[in-house]
């Protein structure tokens, strides 16, 4: 080759490249620097010795060392897309992952466990409800609103049981009262509607 690769512009550039590539895996850094060095050798093969302009132009065309090293890892998003697509063909940058819409789109094992737990909660004596609600809050796919909804829905049967129990107790007491007065018993849920004699002043 006609141009000496010990030219200060070249050695300076390679030094900057080496520094920028400090984070690359062992072996790859040396490989990359050697490839860039070989590239400059090829680019300047026909240049006349002492042609500083040609040297500077060749170095300039290579680009910023930081940019070259950044391309080594690829942008993380792009890399992830390629990995997800699997070999041998990778999704191009303008292809976007399918939008998650519709029922079940944001569901994984935790979310499924939450629903099953809540569904069989009553049958398992309340353990399912506890498990279901816990799973719902652990989920990283559901939004806070969805978690709250799962909690309310999960607690509804328990609430119904408590209310039912109260109604039974209160209703029983009222029934025994009205029985002594030989009045037809009112349906349990409306026991509060039974007028209390002399209740209004």
């Amino acid at each position, binding site marked *: 080759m006609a141009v000496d690769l010990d030219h200060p512009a070249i050695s300076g550039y390679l030094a900057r490249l080496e520094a920028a590539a400090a984070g690359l895996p062992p072996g790859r850094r040396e*490989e990359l620097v050697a490839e860039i060095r070989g*590239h400059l050798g090829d680019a300047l093969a026909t240049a006349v010795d002492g042609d500083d302009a040609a040297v500077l132009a060749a170095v300039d065309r*290579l*680009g910023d060392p930081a940019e070259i090293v950044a391309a080594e890892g*690829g942008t993380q998003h792009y890399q992830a897309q390629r990995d997800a697509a699997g070999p*041998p*063909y990778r999704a*191009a940058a303008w292809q976007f992952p399918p939008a998650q819409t519709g029922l079940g789109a944001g569901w994984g094992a935790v979310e499924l466990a939450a629903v099953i737990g809540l569904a069989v909660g009553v049958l398992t004596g309340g353990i399912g409800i506890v498990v279901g609600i816990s799973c719902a809050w652990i989920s990283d796919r559901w939004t806070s609103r969805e978690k709250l909804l799962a909690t309310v829905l999960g607690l509804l049967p328990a609430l119904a049981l408590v209310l039912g129990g109260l109604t039974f107790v209160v209703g029983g007491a009222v029934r025994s009262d009205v029985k002594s007065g030989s009045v037809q018993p009112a349906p349990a849920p409306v026991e509060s509607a039974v007028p209390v004699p002399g209740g209004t002043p």
Partner: protein
Amino acid sequence: MEPGEARQVLPQLRRGALEYCVIALLCERPRYGFDLVRELSEAEGLLTSEGTIYPLLSRLRKEGLVTTSWRESDSGPPRRYYALTTDGRAALERFVQDWTRFRDGVDRVLGTGAAGPDRWAVAEKTTKEEPH
């Protein structure tokens, strides 16, 4: 869309297409880095920083789409040559199909296909003639 956003489109398009252009060049015959750069620089705007071709080739190698070998050169030290693998050929075939479909779709919407870019010339003229 802001003019700034429009400018960002080109790097994205380039990033997706460049590696398949490299693969396509290797489909003809094995090549070394500078040889690829020389070919790619013929297409304007495809390769902005020549040095980034080496990280790209390294990725293709890791993905098993290309293999490398060292060959003696007439002038100077041995060169590293890159050649396409069977997987690389399959990837290229898939991309050519996808690219054709993608390009035709965009052309149809923009009216920049075989029917010609005349439509935009007319549209531009009309806009300019309007008083406001």
